[in-house]
């Protein structure tokens, strides 16, 4: 009960922060608080949100995947090829997009876990490889696809949101359930907390870790399909820098980069915050450089607040800690 209520309080806190942001932009710009803004938002975020959901699980085990932007590009490129050049049906193209993501993610996992190389390095390699393959297969050209691919991102009449958005919500809920209510999720948290202890408890951690990278790969493939569908064309340059947005969203949602702690639902709020910030700043007419400065500040502030909530034992911050903690602060135990 206490655990559940603690979680709800956290969700509520994230929701409040997001609503605050919306209200802020609403005050700054007359036209921001309209249904259209929200519909646009909902249809913009699916690609980033599903990737960030997978990234949450990877960060929970203390890993990282920098290749998601490139793999998204590759998946989109393949979808374009399949539809335009090979004239395959949409569902086959989708499977190809998902498949290439799954392969890339599995490779990241196998190499980093199997050979004991930090996932940071392995996925940095994959970042280059996937982008390179995307360029090679498309001859670095954007392909216009059109209506065959656009329907998943088009709002369902009468509902306002797209099928992609509904799938995204499903992924978020499923991700949260997996993380907090299943054996697999428990192992992820445990591995991120103290892998040596998990190994000595007799649990084979390697397959679990590979599976997480594979899952993120699959979701990245899905993100590629969503992205292509939103653009209506496949762009081999799609997703450049997306890994940073995804990681930022996860971290804003309070997942620890050190592993052992995370929440997919809060990641979703992180995605909302980033997307709202982007849309809002565009609407109030902020220049691109200003947008970047502000987005950067928001990320840093979010992380600092999170550190206050979770790590600091210092007395100086006790007031702030009490403000940001769901229950009376106990700090990091030293015993």
């Amino acid at each position: 009960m206490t655990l559940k209520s603690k979680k709800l309080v956290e969700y509520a806190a994230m929701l409040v922060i997001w609503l605050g942001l919306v209200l802020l932009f609403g005050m700054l710009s007359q036209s921001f608080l309209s249904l259209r803004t929200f519909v646009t938002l909902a249809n913009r975020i699916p690609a980033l949100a599903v990737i960030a959901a997978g990234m949450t699980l990877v960060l929970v085990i203390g890993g990282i995947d920098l290749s998601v932007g490139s793999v998204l590009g590759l998946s989109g490129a393949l979808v374009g090829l399949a539809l335009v050049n090979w004239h395959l049906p949409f569902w086959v193209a989708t499977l190809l997009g998902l498949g290439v993501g799954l392969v890339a993610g599995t490779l990241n996992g196998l190499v980093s876990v199997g050979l004991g190389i930090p996932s940071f390095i392995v996925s940095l390699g994959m970042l280059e490889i996937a982008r390179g393959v995307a360029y090679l297969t498309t001859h670095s050209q954007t392909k216009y696809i059109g209506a065959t691919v656009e329907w998943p991102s088009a709002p369902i009449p009468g509902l306002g949101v797209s099928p992609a958005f509904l799938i995204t919500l499903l992924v978020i809920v499923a991700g949260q359930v997996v993380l907090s209510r299943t054996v697999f999720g428990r192992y992820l948290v445990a591995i991120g907390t103290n892998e040596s202890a998990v190994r000595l408890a007799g649990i084979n951690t390697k397959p679990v870790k590979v599976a997480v990278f594979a899952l993120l790969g699959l979701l990245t493939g899905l993100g590629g399909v969503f992205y292509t569908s939103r653009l209506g064309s496949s762009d081999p340059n799609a997703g450049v820098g997306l890994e940073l947005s995804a990681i930022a969203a996860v971290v804003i949602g309070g997942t620890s980069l050190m592993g052992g702690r995370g929440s997919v639902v809060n990641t979703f709020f992180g995605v909302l915050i980033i997307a709202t910030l982007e849309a809002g700043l565009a609407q109030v007419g902020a220049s691109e450089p200003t947008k970047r400065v502000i987005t950067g500040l928001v990320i840093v502030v979010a992380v600092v607040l999170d550190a206050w909530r979770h790590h600091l034992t210092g007395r100086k911050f006790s007031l702030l800690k009490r403000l940001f903690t769901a229950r009376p602060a106990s700090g990091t135990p030293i015993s």
Partner: protein
Amino acid sequence: MAEAAHLLQVTRLQKSYNVPVLLDFSFSLRSGEVHALVGSNGAGKSTFAKILCGLTPADGGEIRLAGLPHAPASKRAAEHAGVIMVLQELNVIGTLSVAENIFLNRLPCRAGFVQRSRLHESARAALARVGLGDLDPATPAGALGVGHQQLVELAGALSRNCRVLILDEPTAALTDPEIERLFGHLRKLRQEGVGIIYVSHRMDEIKRIADRITVMRDGRAVATHLSVDVTPDCLVREMVGHELPERGGLSERPAGPVALSVRNLSAGDQVRDVSFTLRQGEILGIAGLIGSGRTETLRAIFGADVKSGGETFVDGKAVKILCPTDALLAGIGLMPEDRKQDGLLMPQSIRVNTTLNTLVRYARAGGWLDTGAEERTTEAYRQRLQISCNSVEQAVGELSGGNQQKVVVARWLARDCRILLFDEPTRGIDVAAKQTMYELLRELAGEGKAVLVVSSELEELMSLCDRLLVMSQGCISAEFTPGEWTQEKITRAAFSGHLDRKVESHPS
């Protein structure tokens, strides 16, 4: 008793973490005295010690050090005031060398560069003081076993000037010879006028070293005695607040067929050609000095470390164990020695820690966890092992050292392995809970399980085991049955390897 001689005067100290931990705790320490602090797990001993050395603030009350108020804001401030502490939990930094660990915040340097030769020279002197003269100061501290890490921490503390020295269960991982050497130093410091606060659960050593003994219960000081005036039984009664029930002694158990047989096991330079058998329904003990290869033997059997040779048979059948998962499949469980490093998920709850290796039992279709069932099991173990906590949802990192240990034990009891290897199962556990632990181990053996216990406490092994092996320098040097063993014989066997053999490499 002249008031002026009071080096440290603590009055009505208060501290709470959600729940009160110290309540009107009063305490005094004279210079040149060893003042022991005893109490059940979770009584508040470590909390008091941490307040003194600036790791956590008090909520109320007063501390005076040599007449002046003492409220250190950090460990550094406390050290500046002359209060040095060795924490209950090991705090060495594994990737740094032993020398760097000892002198971490006072590295000798010139123009910002560490002077390695000077550092190593001082480190060698400090190590020699705790009997680790042979240890290369450049060894990474993470390569050492728990006992040696403890000695390294003691070396660090003993190498500095102080007025008050606080030792929080310094001997939980040490064996008799190291303890004797430590006591020699404490007596010397006492003569120099240092006040020493000594926390321990081992009543016999407290009687030996302490001048006065304060008993803590639920955050209060219930009594202070002169060490000569009081018996261990009386202390235990005051600690738990009631009479401990009489415990049954050794009950004869018929030993069953051989469950585990290890032949010519070798691993690293710590385990050399070890062979033994373990029967169903038997409790087999392994004694030995620290660094004698006991822990390494268990880890090699369990597949936690790589073996360089040897065979393992379970129920007469050869099994290949390359990793802990293989060991569990063969029915072998190992409760590791280092609870912080190899056992616990500190930020996670008692429930999550207890069910970690039995998690699939709580899974319904699709891997969905039945947390209610987890909670019930954990609650049962909490009561059985007397784990003192707010609830089973409390983070393990917030528990006292002894209670953390009980959580690791609970995890392995829940797993129900046919062959259970326990490495220092009672490290940091209080007297009453130790009795429960012994009962549990006997019960396991009574159910036909094969139990192997490594312990640094000879008395514990002698009262618990049906048979005893002694290890020395990586080899089994002797085997005893209850009739044959005496403390002296066992100690001689533990040293035998050192007499026969020159130390070939650093003892780690």
